[in-house]
């Protein structure tokens, strides 16, 4: 009796756990590997293994001490660029989203559709033109030309503003208009309604879109590679991949430590907002 129950359980559910555990190993192995390697005392990739023989902090220390590799500068640059661009992105997106959600004007529908159509094409696709455009801007306005963070931020700003406006508009549509009408009766104008009522209520989507935009910019490679030439101005994605690649095997410890430092905050941020991010993505895409 007992054994047949067990076989039944195995046939019904056991294999499910087998599959489940297999994919746990599949997903976690590379992550555990890089984490243990960042603390492991070994010379190079050849001697690396999942469970290290001895632990050390030397890889982290070398990131801090090696003056040829300005790792923490890259990290700072990336946080700076991603947060400024992300912030302005949601700010301008919220303004536009408000107009599309609340104001009645001719061309509203056309404008909305145009916004979505434009954003179907990834912004980096025209990187040749972006490069040549900023090459010319370098002559005219060097402070935002090629190789500057300012110029890169401008490009990132254009990259997802349409998408964000669209999603913010969708969220604002769910905020009852009776609220603004009541405020209007009390004599509030558009900007008061925006700042006091609609924008605060739209905060959840604004925060999520900021996080999504931030992570997107943090992980971008191609535009940063087209734009930035001075190693001191690199983003972390560019820095790790350009500077460490020459001696991949011997730098493995530093690469692992650099990866852990670069990935942890983003992973935590993502997991914290996971429900909203995936929810927002699916909702937005299905609508689009």
């Amino acid at each position, binding site marked *: 009796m007992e054994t047949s129950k067990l076989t039944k359980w195995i046939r019904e559910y056991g294999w499910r756990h087998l599959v489940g555990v297999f994919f746990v190993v599949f*997903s976690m192995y*590379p992550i555990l590997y890089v984490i243990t390697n960042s603390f492991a005392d070994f010379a190079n990739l050849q001697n690396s*293994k999942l469970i290290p023989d001895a632990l050390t902090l030397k890889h982290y220390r070398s990131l801090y001490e090696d003056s040829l590799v300005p790792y923490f500068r890259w990290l700072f640059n990336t946080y700076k660029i991603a947060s400024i661009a992300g912030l302005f992105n949601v700010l301008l997106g919220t303004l536009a989203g408000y107009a599309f959600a609340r104001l009645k004007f001719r061309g509203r529908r056309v404008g909305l559709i145009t916004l979505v159509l434009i954003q179907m094409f990834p912004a980096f696709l025209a990187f040749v033109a972006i490069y040549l455009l900023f090459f010319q801007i370098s002559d005219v306005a060097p402070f935002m030309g090629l190789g500057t963070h300012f110029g890169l931020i*401008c490009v990132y700003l254009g990259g997802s503003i349409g998408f964000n406006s669209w999603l913010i508009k969708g969220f604002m549509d769910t905020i009852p208009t009776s609220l603004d009408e009541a405020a209007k009766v009390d004599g509030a104008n558009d900007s008061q309604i925006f700042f006091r009522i609609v924008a605060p209520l739209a905060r959840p989507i604004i925060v999520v879109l900021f996080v999504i935009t931030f992570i997107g910019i943090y992980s971008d490679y191609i535009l940063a590679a*087209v734009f930035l030439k001075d190693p001191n101005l690199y983003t972390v994605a560019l820095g790790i991949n350009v500077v460490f690649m020459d001696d991949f095997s011997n730098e493995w410890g530093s690469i692992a430590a650099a990866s852990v430092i670069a990935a942890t905050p983003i*992973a935590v941020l993502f997991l914290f907002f996971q429900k909203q991010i*995936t929810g927002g993505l699916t909702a937005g895409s*299905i609508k689009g």
Partner: protein
Amino acid sequence: MKISTIIRYVLLGIFNALMFYIVPLAISYESWFLLLIVGIITFLINITYLTNRLKPLKWITPGFIFLLAFVVFPAGFNFYVSFTNWQTGHILTKTQVIERLEDLTFSTEEQRGVEFDLYVMQDSDLDYYFLADLDENNLLFGKAITSDEFNTINYANHEPSFKDSNNNIVIPESLYLLSGKEQIANSSQLQELSLLVDKNTRINLYNISVFGASSGRIFSSQQKYSYDSDTDILYDNTQNVACTLGDRGNFICGGESVDPGWRITVGSENYQRIIDDERFRGPLSTVATWTFQFAFFSVLLAFFVGLFLAVTLNNEKVRFQKVYRSIYIIPYAIPGFISILVFRGLLNPDFGLINDWLDPIYQLLNIEPIRWFRTEASSKAAVLLVNTWLGFPYMFLIVTGALQSIPTELIEASKVDGATPRQSFWRITFPLLLVSISPLLIGAFAYNFNNFTLIFLLTGGGPPLVGADVSVGYTDILISFTYNLAVSGGRGVQFGLAAAVTTIIFFLVLIISAISFRYSKRLERIYGNI
């Protein structure tokens, strides 16, 4: 006037001042496209904030400007570039080329054979000075400089004080006159030095003499090319010929085209090259085929792994579902460029752990270990493996979500009608699933179609495709191929050609999106009313 109005006008004033500062600069650099975009933005900003009629624009304009300037405009500009020969050797505009050419000089030995006494001196800093005794009125003295320093104005002066009444040379105490032997000892250094007389004339040490004074000669350099803007003719002063205009954006002097040339529009030449040029078309079609395969199989693999997992675990009686789910999301949470880097380590053919694990299998089957990234098949497999790892969590999440939103009554009704679980899955659950997630699948396809980061960071497009005219590899997708054309590549940068390929990618993305739109509409019609 309200304070907000004043602030608005001040900001508008600052903005306009900045724009008007840019206009003459843009004109001087002939950046017509820049001028266009500056003009449109300035117009838009002013019309928005100066008139009160266009209220909604006040909210939309700030964001729209960035979209216009850095997304819409580059797309149009890219289209324009695809019709030019903008590439190494044709980067500048015609005006800039003429400026460059007019700066070039060539040297002639004037007054050949005419030599004069030249004295070499040194000051306490060991800097050299030349004194050239040309004639009564030209006793020229000055610091001797190398050609790097020619642009620093340091012309020689006539200094009669260096001679006494008996026409003997007198050296001031601050300077030391080098003897012939000392000059020979330093001759390699001295040969590099010149005394500048004026912009185009210099004096060099010609012959060092141990007895008596060394001799110097005058060299004068002339402008190599001169340009007559009225007739649009360039003259080559070395050959004394008028140059003709070539049809590729070059001057042609005596049968030879002059470098650098300037960029011109060349019509559909870049597109023609994509179609006609065998050495280019071959690699491009390889790349295009792989791009579609890569995007398709990436989505397919990730989707089926995600689907399989979701269906396996989506059962009320399976415990630890939450634990599984939170673990599967983790690969999705790591920035892609990090995961790719880790896989490069794991898959490393010489030291990587994956080959260590597979070693027993290699032994068992008695085969050579896989040389990851070195062969076409292993590189493609690696790309798909890594992309499955990166992509399955997303698919798992959306499939789980979609499964839970399918009404259970449908499945139960089919059970009552005698359907096996397998039948009800493939006939009911799966089609319904496709309806809700097919737009996401096509979105994922479009995303992978341009997944530059994965390809560029994992394989760099390699291994290289042998025999190709351009730098390209077996795992290159269209966007990474374009990047190589524009940025590196063995033959200099080819912006025009890269822009043409990009334009083609634009159209492909457009087609994919259009299909996505129609397909999801059709599916909705078929299954939407169940």
